[in-house]
């Protein structure tokens, strides 16, 4: 791989990691908001 190849892989990996993390936070937040807005609260498994 050329030097430019290593650089591109590094930048793409950083972008994927950061945006993936941000999306995961968004997904979990939406799920939590939905759960809190649900009038029938969930119960824990025995």
């Amino acid at each position, binding site marked *: 791989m050329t030097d*430019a190849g290593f650089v591109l892989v*590094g930048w793409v990996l*950083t972008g994927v*990691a*950061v945006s993936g993390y941000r999306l995961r936070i968004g997904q979990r937040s939406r799920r*939590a908001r939905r*759960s*809190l807005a649900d009038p029938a609260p969930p119960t824990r498994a025995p």
Partner: protein
Amino acid sequence: MPLTTPPPTTSTDARPEADAETGLLRPRVAMVLGVATLAALTALAILGLAVAPPDAVQGDAQRLMYLHVPAAWLAYLAFAVTAGASALWLWSRTRAATWDRLAGASAELGVLFTALTLVLGSLWGRPVWGVWWAWDARLVTTAVLFFLYVGYLALRRIPGPGRERRSAIAALIAFVDVPVVHFSVEWWRTLHQQGTVFNEELSAEIEGTMAFTLWFAVLAFTLLYVYLLDRRYRLGALEEGMERRELDAAIAERLAEAPGRAVEAAARAAETARRRAEADVEPVGGAPR
């Protein structure tokens, strides 16, 4: 950093979930920061990949510096915030659930950016050093740092009384490795280069555009850290609200199922409430909610 306060309740029977989502930043500030962060990272990509010249010795491979150095800086910053928040939780006068939540959120970001530092360093090392990995003091101490905080995050997930205390103590112990990582290049002979920018003996001169891009990268990544920290902190508050709700529902269910054991269940609920109140002690002088 502007801090939000809980929204005022308009009725006495307001549900606790109503103010479960509390961030470090006001929503409008968080939104502006998100846009600014995206713009800064886009500008950084243009600066780092096209505008800054290639290094005279390393060529294009040196462009990884614009990610590797700020990622390492963010890891230090994130773990310092975790240690500071943990110390504030441990000190009885400032103890508040918000410090524990902040410590956990920042540690997660620290782990993410330590992992990126290691991967980007490896990608940079292959063309420059000829190896993906070397048993070098800087590399090894950074890997140890990564695993220490992965362990810290695992420890946080173990429920039960004393979770906050043991997490805070673990965070302070793990932080000892941060100065070891930083000074490893001075304490031992390493393949990794020594500090360059602030090294007075070296008095290195970085070319104007390269220096600007490096400092801009540090700024852009710091914005990214604050933005992600706010989002992660907010998620922590939401998930704690969910846990409280599930616990309350479970207690109510047990009470309904076995009226004869109501006293026992009520005692357990009171104990839970007492522990929660202890964790939520408001600090003297106020703390972010």
